C-alpha cells in the first residue's frame, strides 16, 4: 500500500517526465538541452550552486561552532532562527531579500536582476543544511582530545585542522550535498529578485517554468532530466565522499 501511494503520487509522474524527454529520440533530447538559453541557465545554476556550497561549508561550520562553543545572551534565539529558511515559504524569502537588497532598499544597495541576486537567494534557502548537520557532531565531540593536543603544544589552528576538522568533515560534506541538491532545484525564491533575464539571471528551474508556460513541454522535460541527473549525482557523490571522510576520521 505504501508503495502504491508513493507510485501514484511521485514515481509515475516522474517516469512521465523521463518518457517525454526522450520522445524525440536522442536528437530531440540533445536539441532541447543544447539550446543556448537552456545551456546558459544550466551553467548559471551549477556555478551559483557551487559558490553557495563553498560559502555554506565555511560559514555553516562557523555558525555551528559559535552556536555550540560560544555563550552569549540571546544565543538560543539565534539558534532557532537558523531553521527559519526551512519554515518560510520560498516566495516570501525572495520578497524579503528584494525588500532589503532591491531598488527600494533602505541601504541603497540594489542587487536585484544581477547574478549576485541568484547567489543571495540560494544562500538564504540553503543556510540550515550545513549548520544542522555539523551542530550535533560538534556537541558530541570529545573535548579531551583537543585539550590533549593543546597540552602537547599544538596551536589553536593546528588543533582545528588536525583534530576538529577531520571529525566534522563527514557532516560538512553531507550538509553540502543536501544544500547543493536544494540549490540546483530552487525556484520560488528566485522568481522575484532575479528578474529571470535569459542568458543573465535565468536559472535552470526558472527556464523550465518558462518553457512550460510557452507550451514547449518536451523541451522542459529534457532540461528537467538533466537537472534530475545532476541532483542525483551530487547526492550520490557527496554521500560517497562523506563515507570516505568517515573512514579517514576513524
Amino acid at each position, binding site marked *: 500500500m505504501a508503495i502504491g501511494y508513493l507510485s501514484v503520487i511521485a514515481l509515475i509522474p516522474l517516469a512521465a517526465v523521463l518518457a517525454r524527454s526522450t520522445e524525440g529520440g536522442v536528437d530531440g533530447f540533445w536539441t532541447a538541452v543544447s539550446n543556448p538559453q537552456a545551456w546558459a541557465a544550466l551553467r548559471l545554476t551549477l556555478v551559483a550552486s557551487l559558490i553557495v556550497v563553498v560559502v555554506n561549508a565555511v560559514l555553516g561550520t*562557523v*555558525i555551528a561552532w559559535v552556536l555550540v562553543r560560544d555563550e552569549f545572551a540571546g544565543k538560543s534565539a539565534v539558534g532557532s532562527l537558523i531553521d*527559519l529558511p526551512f519554515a518560510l515559504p520560498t516566495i516570501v524569502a525572495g520578497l524579503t531579500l528584494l525588500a532589503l537588497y532591491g531598488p527600494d532598499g533602505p541601504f541603497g544597495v540594489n542587487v536585484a536582476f544581477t547574478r549576485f541576486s541568484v547567489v543571495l537567494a540560494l544562500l538564504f534557502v540553503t543556510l540550515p543544511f550545513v549548520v544542522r548537520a555539523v551542530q550535533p557532531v560538534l556537541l558530541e565531540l570529545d573535548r579531551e582530545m583537543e585539550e590533549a593536543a593543546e597540552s602537547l603544544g599544538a596551536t589553536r589552528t593546528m588543533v582545528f585542522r588536525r583534530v576538529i576538522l577531520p571529525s566534522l568533515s563527514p557532516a560538512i560534506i553531507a550538509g553540502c550535498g543536501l544544500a547543493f541538491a536544494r540549490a540546483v532545484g530552487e*525556484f*520560488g525564491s528566485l522568481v522575484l529578485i532575479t528578474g529571470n533575464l535569459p542568458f543573465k539571471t535565468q536559472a535552470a*528551474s526558472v527556464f523550465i*517554468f518558462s518553457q512550460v508556460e510557452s507550451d514547449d513541454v518536451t523541451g522542459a522535460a529534457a532540461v528537467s532530466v538533466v537537472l534530475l541527473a545532476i541532483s542525483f549525482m551530487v547526492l550520490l557523490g557527496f554521500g560517497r565522499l562523506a563515507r570516505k571522510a568517515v573512514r579517514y576520521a576513524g
Partner: protein
Amino acid sequence: MRGRLALRGIVLGYLGLLLALPVGLVFYRAFEDGFAAFWNAVSTPEAMHAFWLTCVMVAVAVPLNTLFGVLCAVVLVRQEFRGRAALNAAIDLPFAVSPVVIGLALILVYGRDGWIGDWLAENGIRVIFSPVGMVLATIFVSLPFVVREVVPVLREIGTEQEQAAATLGASPLQAFLRVTLPAIRWGVAYGVVLTTARALGEFGAISVVSGKLSGRTETLTLFVENRFQRFDLTGAYAASVVLALLALGTLLSMNLLRPKEGR
C-alpha cells in the same frame, strides 16, 4: 578570546544581513501605513480566498501524508523485503527534485496530452488548472517529512514492548494503537509540523499546475507573487507577513517538540 568575539561577530552579522534584517523589513513595510492598511490588504475577497485555498491544501495533504508516513515507516523498519533499500531511497525523491519539475511531471500525467489526460477529459475531470492538481502537487512535495521523523524513533524503541503486548493476547492492531503509536507520537508530531510548513509554503509546483486564476486557483503564496507583479506592494507584503507568522508559529512548535523527541 579575541578570535571568539570575531567569530561571534561574523556569525551574527551574516545571520542579521541574510535573515533577520530582510524579514524584519517586510514586517515593517507591511505595517508602514498602519494596521488598517494591512487589514484592508488581507481582507480582500481574493486574499481571503487564497488563504482559504491554502488551508484546503494543508487539510488534505497533511492527514494523507501523515497516514502514509507512519505506515511507510512501519514497513521500512519492521518488515524485511526485497527492494526495501530502493523504497527507502525513493521516499527522499521529493527532496531531490525541483518543485518546477514536480509540477511538470503532474502535467505530463494529468494534463491535456498527458498519459491519462484524454480519459480525464472524456469523463469531465479537471486536474491541471484546478485545485485537485494543486493538492497532488502539495502532497508530492511534502511526502517525506513524517517518514523521515518516524523511522529513527521506531528503530530506537525496538520491538520488545510490541512482542510483550502480543504474548499478552493483543492483536497486531491493538499492539500498534496501544503500544507503538504512543511511543512514536512526538516523532509523528514533529513530522506533521514540518509537513504543514512545507504544504503552507509550497510555490513552485503549485505555480506550474494552477494556471494562476485569481480568486479560483490561487493560494496565499501565489497571491504574494500576483500582488507583487501588479505593483500592489502593500498587498504582497501583507500576505507575506501572514505566511511569515505561520512560519514563525511552525518554528515555535518545532522548538517545543524537539526536546521531547529524546524521551
